[in-house]
């Protein structure tokens, strides 16, 4: 374990640690672009300069391994001057169009220039012009002029996705990132290149121009796209959720997440924006995609009243005539609460587990994405085991067919796209007298006279636990309220049981309860 002194502070690090890692460990400021903890060392931005005592030349911290007794500093005037000029070299051909650049607000150049910049640019020559708005693939757009050639994206495709789509073409200050002809960047991890791009060179086609980042708040959650359970940052404002980005978790996903998981954010928003028309007379139209109220058949009804009514009906019918269907899409707490209501209060054994794609469950792409597209399969199985329930699906269909089961409550899957058998299951179950379906999204197949729809919270609106494929329990927390009269399974169980929810809990998500200025945290910094 070598010991070294960083800016006058002693630190002991593991063998083979580079200086920049030691700086990160100490949480000291050090400028850098090309170094990324999840990628190999390129050493090309030449910004992480440090002075090592006894060495006449400045060293780059990313490629120098800490040795015992090293005295390292980046507070030297020599180092500061080198970093200042290093930043200026980055900027001489970088366009000054921050106002229209989509990265502004989370841009490495902006941040680091504020911290380490020279502030008196001496470049008076013309900038090099390069291509703009280049389609690298269906998700990623490149602006070559803004690129600082840190090669992070190239190394990502080489080392992480191992697809090698990107390369640096030409040389000198005409170098550009690009794809090989006929081989666009369209792997399932392509948007990670956008995340690691320190400038606005790579932007996501989907998120591009939708929001300025300083209008967004972020909170950490867990991706529900598959059983890996990647940790994510959810970016949201009062209009809804705008994007997901991976959050670092060494045990689960490292620094990355897949594009498919990112796409899911759009399903959460109560409204979808549609644009119509040509350049000048384009119009913006909003379409609701989320269920905003309870539906008792075709009758619109307050969701909480509907839940209470469902509870009463279930109790009237009693244990044998009712059934519950659960999926791996709810949190463990929800599953437990509702199952407990059925098993204990109603004394019913009719709890069924709906599996969507059993045959792909063991698929794994070698990076993150798994075939089991439910976040909580393990949790559902655990719940069933806890209450000793092991009914098969055929028992349910038989029961409905023969009329034993009159009322079915389905904790509907939040992500309906990964349930290819959604329609057939609805057909199957709607043969029962009453089918109650808790759902977060509208679905045409549910529009039937005997189907009651209860609006359910999505994972950003509730708290709970997901158990991933490896059995790791991950907590998700309340992020934002999107549909304020929807509720989660725990609340549903309490309402059905007839517990009197205190006023403030019944309207937990009410807009009147919003915290002052909750969406204006980053605004006004400019």
């Amino acid at each position: 374990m070598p010991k070294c002194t960083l800016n006058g502070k002693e630190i002991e690090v593991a063998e083979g640690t580079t200086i920049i890692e030691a700086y990160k460990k100490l949480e000291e400021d050090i400028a850098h672009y090309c170094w990324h903890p999840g990628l190999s060392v390129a050493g090309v931005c030449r910004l992480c300069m440090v002075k090592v005592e006894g060495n006449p030349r400045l060293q780059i911290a990313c490629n120098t391994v800490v040795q015992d007794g090293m005295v390292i500093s980046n507070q030297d005037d020599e180092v500061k001057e080198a970093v200042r000029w290093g930043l200026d070299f980055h900027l001489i051909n970088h366009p000054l169009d921050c106002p229209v650049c989509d990265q502004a607000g989370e841009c490495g150049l902006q941040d680091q220039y504020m911290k380490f910049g020279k502030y008196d640019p001496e470049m008076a020559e013309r900038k090099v012009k390069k291509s703009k708005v280049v389609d690298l693939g269906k998700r990623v757009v490149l602006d070559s002029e803004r690129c600082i050639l840190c090669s992070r994206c190239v190394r990502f495709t080489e080392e992480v996705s191992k697809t090698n789509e990107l390369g640096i073409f030409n040389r000198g200050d005409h170098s550009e990132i690009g794809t090989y002809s006929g081989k666009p960047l369209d792997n399932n991890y392509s948007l990670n290149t956008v995340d690691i791009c320190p400038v606005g060179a790579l932007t996501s086609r989907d998120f591009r121009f939708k929001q300025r980042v300083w209008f967004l708040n972020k909170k950490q959650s867990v991706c529900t796209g598959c059983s890996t359970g990647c940790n994510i940052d959810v970016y949201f404002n009062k209009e809804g959720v705008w994007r997901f980005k991976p959050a670092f978790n060494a045990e689960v996903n490292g620094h990355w997440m897949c594009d498919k998981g990112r796409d899911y954010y759009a399903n959460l928003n109560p409204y979808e924006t549609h644009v119509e028309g040509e350049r000048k007379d384009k119009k913006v139209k909003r379409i609701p995609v989320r269920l905003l109220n309870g539906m008792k058949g075709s009758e619109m009804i307050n969701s909480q009243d509907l839940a209470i009514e469902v509870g009463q009906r279930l109790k009237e019918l009693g244990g044998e005539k009712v059934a519950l269907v659960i999926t791996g899409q709810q949190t463990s707490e929800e599953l437990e609460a509702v199952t407990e209501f059925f098993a204990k209060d109603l004394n019913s054994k009719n709890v069924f587990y709906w599996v969507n794609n059993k045959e792909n469950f063991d698929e794994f792409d070698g990076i993150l994405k798994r075939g089991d597209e439910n976040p909580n399969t393990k949790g559902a199985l655990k719940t069933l085991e806890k209450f000793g329930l092991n009914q098969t699906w055929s028992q349910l269909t038989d029961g409905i067919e023969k009329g034993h089961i009159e009322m079915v409550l389905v904790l509907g899957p939040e992500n309906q796209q990964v349930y290819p058998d959604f329609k057939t299951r609805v057909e199957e179950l709607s043969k029962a007298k009453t089918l109650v379906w808790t759902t977060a999204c509208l679905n045409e197949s549910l529009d039937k006279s005997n189907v009651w729809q209860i609006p359910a919270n999505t994972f950003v609106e509730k708290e709970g636990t997901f158990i991933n494929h490896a059995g790791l329990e991950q907590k998700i927390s309340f992020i934002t309220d999107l549909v304020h009269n929807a509720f989660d399974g725990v609340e549903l169980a309490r309402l059905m049981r007839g517990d009197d929810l205190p006023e403030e809990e019944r309207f937990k998500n009410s807009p009147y309860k919003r915290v002052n200025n909750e969406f204006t945290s980053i605004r006004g910094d400019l």
Partner: protein
Amino acid sequence: MSLVKQPSSTSSWYLPGIFKGMLLTFFGKMLKNLFNKKDMITLNYPEEKYQYSPRFKGNHVLTVNKEGDIRCTACMLCATACPADCISIIASEDEDPTVEKYPISYEIDILRCVFCGMCEEACPVDAVRMGPEWQTPGVNGSQFVYDKEHLAYRPQLNGGKGIQSLCEDTERHNFGI
């Protein structure tokens, strides 16, 4: 600095005050207005309108470029600077590769607006200005949410052609700014 005048003991007397006021009304104003109509301060609004200073901060104007298109680049700095949160912009990709983006929707809720002029101040491309108008009645709430068309091409602005900004972009683009 504001000086607060201490009331004198006689100011609480009622009648002298009324007479003082009457004198001002009759001799100071009425007679003056009767014989010298030119210097009369009041106007016959709405037939006559007062000429405001060109720097008056009235209703917003979106300027246009030489081609008559809206100059706004949808950078949303005005919306960021707005203390009343009255500007909402939806940006979209432009077909022209030299133009990064443009607003498909630019709305100002004029009833929320406090006419502080921060949007004008924040705009990096002289696309939004505070105009001279302020007499803008409407009959329902939605008429006070001004859309792009109204902000740039309302008849008061060069007869619907819009106000052209003097900023020249070509040179800026050549230098990569």
